[in-house]
């Protein structure tokens, strides 16, 4: 160090002898030059610095200092550099750190870090860290930790990206390699005093580098057109291979699969029937969600339990920096979210949402409710898996609500403990009155349904090589149905009935996940997962009939997977998962293999082969009142086998600064599909007698084009799919289209950002989905004066609904004041009011004639939403 270049910075004020031990520092540095940092500290805290200008030039600091002593603050500030400090005679001397002796292996280092939000200090899961020299990349884990092995070098330049955040380029120097590097990313738009969304940064979705893997930024989806509520499931349906024409958020149909074949995990616990408003909205408040990962097929061995896809939702941990609040209002509901630190190591976040549809029935509510209704007098609606027929002239009392809380404890940089709780509820009540010639009746139907879940999780980054995560999650889905009836025959006393049903699923999941960094290009992950599924269905009809189905099954899985790079161009992810079900009395081996070959930095080819097992499944049956009930069941060792699937995926990607293009072809083979025999009159559903099993497959191509820069951010998806099932006891054993077989689907989504405005449009087109319907029918008179009806069905699902299409548009305005920020939005669903048919079935009606009775088959259809405007406003402060 040249003495001549040493500049001593002396404070003009007199130094205070007790300053270093008494003062605390509060400061926020965002990508600020280190020299500027020292200047600010000198000015605000009367500190004296001595340093070599050449040593600190071009070093930028992003750090938030809150109530730290000067020593701790300096440690924090310099933690991302190869500098250290020394206090001598009241002067802080900045000098280079000695070369690290923490050499992990000869000629190599492991750098490690944690990615955080610069404003809230929340960890950011699944961020991408790219080595700019080699092009190799790693992904931060669920807690934001990453580690990366580099050869012996003086510095490494990293490019760090996370959906919804400003990209960041950092350079780590030798000397920083052995410490935990905290990397702070700033949310898009928040680095400016005014909210200005830079072009290309407002990306609600992202194609990840793995096979069939996407992620979603919940904040980014706010700009998309919304049907009443900002709905993550609707946003997921804008991805290729996930059907959007069902207009239903009760589940996802991925690559022709049934929704129950896709696992939804929220903070470590499973969700069932995760919907509000008869399936119109998902039951998850997007305000609380930090990260969404979607795996459509061929995913790694650590995930299992369903035969097709999986959605991982991670909630926010809460603001560790300062309290913040968010309130919002739309034409269906209002919500509030509060997040605040408790001390320096605990954050708490709470979010609550409730519709006011039971108090005020807005036009949006009426439009949505109208879209649920059929074209006839009565409509069958989905009350959380209970399909009830209601009179179209009746208006139910209905509301939905959900609550999320999460407490996160960060005892130090290596440990995270979180407790998460969720409760969603739909409450439905309808009164029907009938006055007839024979009898009159008054009935009241009360149905409540929803999920409750909680999880506790402890994660620790033990060292640069080892990380583990232990979690315990419990989940309960409960549907309670009660129908009280009072029937009065003419001139008689009322006859009262009470029907009760409960449909309950309890899950307890224990999970231990471990990650071990073996070498530069090799990581091993292994763990164990145990889930107990307890199912309890009880039905009592007027105390005279009852039906029960109960089962209690354990599913235990162990897995091992690794990721390694045999060459700079090739990444291979082999893995294996072993699952044992005590009810099925069987073990299942699920090998997984995926690989990506990078031909150039822009072009890659990929493929995956994997086996998956699902030991809990869903079906429905007629409850003998003409209504249907969904219920889940455990696979057994008899006629109800576990559902197994084999995924084959192959494709290629092109990605540069401006565009992403991704094409995948897939073939999913299913064995052990189950159907329940209808009209089963058993009191106790007999698993062995009332079900029959079959097989199926889906195959197709998903195409994804993404324009990711410029003022216009747009993506287009095309999916071609064939999904067929074969059951020996159905359709004479002939293969037929599955319910979610949809040959073509095209979706175009655009977001145009201009200063504080975001304009968005989504156009969806889908070819018709199958239905069975009726070809012909006739009636025969019976000598006792009654009639019997006979109908001829065409082959199963051989008819098709009309093609589907709609255009949604929205406009969002963002503004930021001194103490709060706000978003105001207007959405119009189905701008040109195209009439779309959601469902169709046929039934007989009788036309009276003087000479005879004529019967026709009435076609009952439920149409989708027509032209529906909606607005919202959100405040954050």
């Amino acid at each position, binding site marked *: 160090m040249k003495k001549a270049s040493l500049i001593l910075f002396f404070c003009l004020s007199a130094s205070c002898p007790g300053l270093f031990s008494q003062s605390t520092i509060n400061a926020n540095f965002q990508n600020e030059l280190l020299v500027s940092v020292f200047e600010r500290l000198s000015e605000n805290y009367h500190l004296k610095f001595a340093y070599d200008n050449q040593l600190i030039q071009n070093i930028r600091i992003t750090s938030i200092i809150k109530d730290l002593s000067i020593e701790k603050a300096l440690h924090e500030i310099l933690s991302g550099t190869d500098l250290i400090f020394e206090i001598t005679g009241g002067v802080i001397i900045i000098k280079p750190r000695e070369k690290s002796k923490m050499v992990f292996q000869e000629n190599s280092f492991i750098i490690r870090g944690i990615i955080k939000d610069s404003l809230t200090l929340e960890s950011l899961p699944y961020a991408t860290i790219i080595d700019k020299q080699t092009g190799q990349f790693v992904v931060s884990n669920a807690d934001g930790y990453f580690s990366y092995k580099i050869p012996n070098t003086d510095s490494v330049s990293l490019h760090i990206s996370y959906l919804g955040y400003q990209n960041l380029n950092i350079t780590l120097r030798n000397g920083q390699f052995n410490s935990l590097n905290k990397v702070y990313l700033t949310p898009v738009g928040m680095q400016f005093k005014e909210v200005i969304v830079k072009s290309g940064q407002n990306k609600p979705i992202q194609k990840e580098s793995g096979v069939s893997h996407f992620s979603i930024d919940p904040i980014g989806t706010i700009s998309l057109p919304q049907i009443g509520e900002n709905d993550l499931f609707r946003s997921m349906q804008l991805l290729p291979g996930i059907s959007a024409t069902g207009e239903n958020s009760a589940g996802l149909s991925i690559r022709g699969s049934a929704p129950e074949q896709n696992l939804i995990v929220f903070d470590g616990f499973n969700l069932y029937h995760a919907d509000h408003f008869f399936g119109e909205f998902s039951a998850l408040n997007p305000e609380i969600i930090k990260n969404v990962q979607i795996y459509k097929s061929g995913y790694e061995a650590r995930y299992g339990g369903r035969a097709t896809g999986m959605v991982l939702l991670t909630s926010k941990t809460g603001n560790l920096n300062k309290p913040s609040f968010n309130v919002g209002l739309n034409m269906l509901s209002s919500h509030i979210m509060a997040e605040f630190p408790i001390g320096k190591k605990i954050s708490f976040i709470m979010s609550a949402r409730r519709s006011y549809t039971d108090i005020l029935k807005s036009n949006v509510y009426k439009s949505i409710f109208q879209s649920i209704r059929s074209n006839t007098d009565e409509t069958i609606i989905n009350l959380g898996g209970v399909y009830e027929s209601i009179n179209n002239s009746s208006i139910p009392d209905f509301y939905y609500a959900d609550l999320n809380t999460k407490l996160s404890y960060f005892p130090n940089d290596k440990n995270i403990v979180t407790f998460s709780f969720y409760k969603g509820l739909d409450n439905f009540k309808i009164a029907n009155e009938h006055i007839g010639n024979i009898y009159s009746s008054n009935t009241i139907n009360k149905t409540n349904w929803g999920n409750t879940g909680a999880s506790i999780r402890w994660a620790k980054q033990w060292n640069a090589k080892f990380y583990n995560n232990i979690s315990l999650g419990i989940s309960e889905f409960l549907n309670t149905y009660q129908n009280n009836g009072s029937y009065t025959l*003419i*001139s008689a006393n009322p006859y009262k009935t009470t029907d009760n049903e409960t449909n309950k699923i309890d899950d307890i999941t224990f999970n231990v996940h471990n990650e071990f960094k073996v070498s530069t290009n090799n990581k091993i992950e292994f763990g164990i997962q145990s889930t107990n599924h307890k199912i309890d269905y009880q039905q009592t009809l007027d105390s005279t009939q009852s039906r029960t189905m109960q089962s209690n099954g354990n599913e235990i899985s162990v897995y091992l997977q690794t990721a390694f790079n045999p060459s700079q161009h090739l990444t291979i992810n082999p893995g294996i998962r072993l699952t044992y079900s005590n009810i099925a009395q069987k073990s299942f081996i699920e090998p997984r293999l995926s690989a990506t070959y990078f031909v150039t930095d822009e072009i890659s080819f990929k493929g995956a082969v994997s086996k998956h097992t699902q030991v809990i499944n869903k079906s429905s049956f007629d409850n003998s009142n003409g209504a249907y009930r969904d219920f889940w069941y455990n696979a057994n060792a008899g006629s109800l086998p576990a559902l197994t699937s084999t995924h084959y995926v192959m494709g290629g990607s092109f990605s540069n600064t401006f565009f992403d293009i991704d094409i995948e072809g897939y073939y999913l083979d299913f064995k052990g599909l189950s159907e329940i025999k209808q009209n089963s009159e058993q009191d106790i559903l007999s698993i062995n007698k009332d079900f029959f099993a079959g097989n199926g497959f889906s195959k197709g191509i998903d195409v994804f084009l993404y324009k990711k820069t410029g003022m216009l951010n747009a993506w287009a998806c095309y999916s071609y799919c064939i999904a067929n099932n074969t059951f020996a006891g159905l359709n004479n054993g002939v293969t037929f289209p599955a319910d979610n077989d949809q040959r073509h689907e095209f979706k175009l989504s655009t977001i145009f950002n201009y200063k504080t405005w975001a304009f968005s449009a989504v156009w969806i087109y889908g070819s018709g989905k199958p239905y069975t319907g009726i070809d012909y029918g006739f009636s025969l008179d019976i*000598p006792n004066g009654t009639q019997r009806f006979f109908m001829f069905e065409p082959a199963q699902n051989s008819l098709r609904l009309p093609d589907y299409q709609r255009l949604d548009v929205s406009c969002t305005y963002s503004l930021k004041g001194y103490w709060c920020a706000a978003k105001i939005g207007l959405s119009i669903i189905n701008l040109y009011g195209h009439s779309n048919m959601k469902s169709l079935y046929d039934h007989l009606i009788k036309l009276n004639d003087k000479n005879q009775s004529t019967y026709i088959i009435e076609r009952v259809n439920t149409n989708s939403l027509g032209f529906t405007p909606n607005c919202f406003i959100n405040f954050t402060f």
Partner: protein
Amino acid sequence: MMSGCKKEASPGSKLIIQSYLYANKRFDTLRIAEFVAGDIPFFSRPVIHADVVIETPENSFRLTDLQGHSGIYYYSGSDFIIKPGTSYTLTVKYNNYVIIAQASIPAKSSEPILLNDTIIVTNTVTSKNIDQSFATLKWNQVTDYSFIISDYEEKDTLPIDIYSSINSSYVPYYFQRPFNGNSVTMQMYDFKYYGSYNILICQVTDDFMKLFDEPTGTQVPTLIQDNIRGGYGIFTGVYCDTVKLKVLKEQP
């Protein structure tokens, strides 16, 4: 979904017939209809101007189309009496369709006996009046299945509803569908009005029973009657015997 519906594979033929041959009665009628396809599936429409003949080994009866486009065919003479134990063959020719159906008439009466010909409707059933609260009907089983019809006799008078004392809309199984047996016990709950009833005990065949096959165990039941070729429907013989029953209000 309607209760009592049956589902079939798509029909090869488009004609449906319906006729019941009541033993010892004049031939009643035959109804013929055809399926018509359309955007909204039409249930059926009457068939007119069909060539219809019913034959026995000894006789042949040509049916006439009832005016009014009703699809109903009758026999204009008075000599077509259905004989017990006889087999009848129906031939229908219409456009390019030909239906041939056969029906065997049960051979003899079941000789029913009503052990108690009056049911007294009471508010409270006690040990004293319990014997009057039901009536047992017995018969000889000629065919495998019997079907009981309750026919209210006092149709010309304003019926008096008995629901004021009996709260039930329950209809017993033997008034709903054929069953295998030779006796039933009828109770006051089984009747709607006070008054006189003709109780018909009808011997029916497997063809008739098949109308009541519920689609249990499989989602695609078949209604392809063994005795009908080239079409669908019912053409069957029925032998009915009648007994009389009174349902009276308890006198104070």
